[in-house]
């Protein structure tokens, strides 16, 4: 008897889940016409940070080291959040930071930007102003020319979100 109850409970939960999922997608599809549908086929409207990281790096290990992420503790205006990614890793001919990725984890699409560097930069550092929808982590991932991945995270409190809509 108890087992039966559980399964009823479960199916109800599932029902609610599916209903919410269905109605949400209805809302999205219904309220924003062709534009969004078109965007759907190219990039997902909403993506979780874990999925983005998986898309960019697969299952490769990302070590939390060598990346100093400078960002304000509180950003009053989420539309303009200045961040600086600094690394102590070398920028030499055969040993350099090849790429810097920047993510704002609370955005519908967390991927903000990436930069491919070369030894001619002399220094693995990049500053950019980014948009943040809400309070969340900013994350920077660095990839070296030898394929090692390093990251740094910083939590930013956003008073007014900066993505509009």
């Amino acid at each position: 008897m108890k087992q039966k109850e559980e399964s009823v409970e479960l199916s109800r939960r599932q029902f609610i889940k599916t209903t919410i999922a269905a109605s949400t997608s209805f809302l999205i599809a219904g309220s924003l016409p062709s534009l969004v549908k078109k965007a759907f086929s190219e990039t997902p409207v909403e993506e979780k940070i874990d999925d983005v990281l998986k898309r960019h790096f697969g299952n490769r290990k990302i070590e939390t080291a060598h990346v100093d992420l400078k960002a304000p503790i509180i950003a009053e205006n989420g539309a303009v959040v200045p961040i600086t990614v600094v690394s102590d890793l070398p920028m030499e001919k055969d040993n350099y930071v090849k790429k810097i990725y920047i993510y704002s984890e609370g955005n519908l699409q967390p991927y903000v930007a990436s930069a491919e560097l070369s030894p001619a930069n002399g220094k693995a550092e990049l500053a950019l102003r980014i948009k943040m929808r809400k309070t969340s982590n900013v994350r920077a991932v660095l990839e070296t020319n030898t394929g090692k991945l390093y990251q740094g995270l910083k939590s930013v409190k956003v008073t007014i979100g900066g993505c509009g809509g």
Partner: protein
Amino acid sequence: MAEVGKIRIKLPQSIKKGEVIPVRALIIHPMETGLRKDKDGKPIPAYYINDVKVYYGDELITSMEWTIAVSADPFMTFYVKADKAAPLKIVYKDNKGGIFEESVQINPQ
């Protein structure tokens, strides 16, 4: 909007040969996300820079991919090892086919 694509690049005043110098660059651009609506409720189409390339002389030294989450009027700082007298050129491209570029001369002493 007449100013869209206007670029300002700033280098340090004096540069020693071999010195790693900061390059500050600003471009006027709305960086519309495509998620906002105008006051009549119509969606404002996405309009943003998605590609940035930096050349030092003939060499492509940095290339970037930007999304809608880079702030309006994008401002960035990156670094260059000033080991030769050559122009530094930045080329920005947006999702509507706009191409904007600007050069400054690096003259290390």
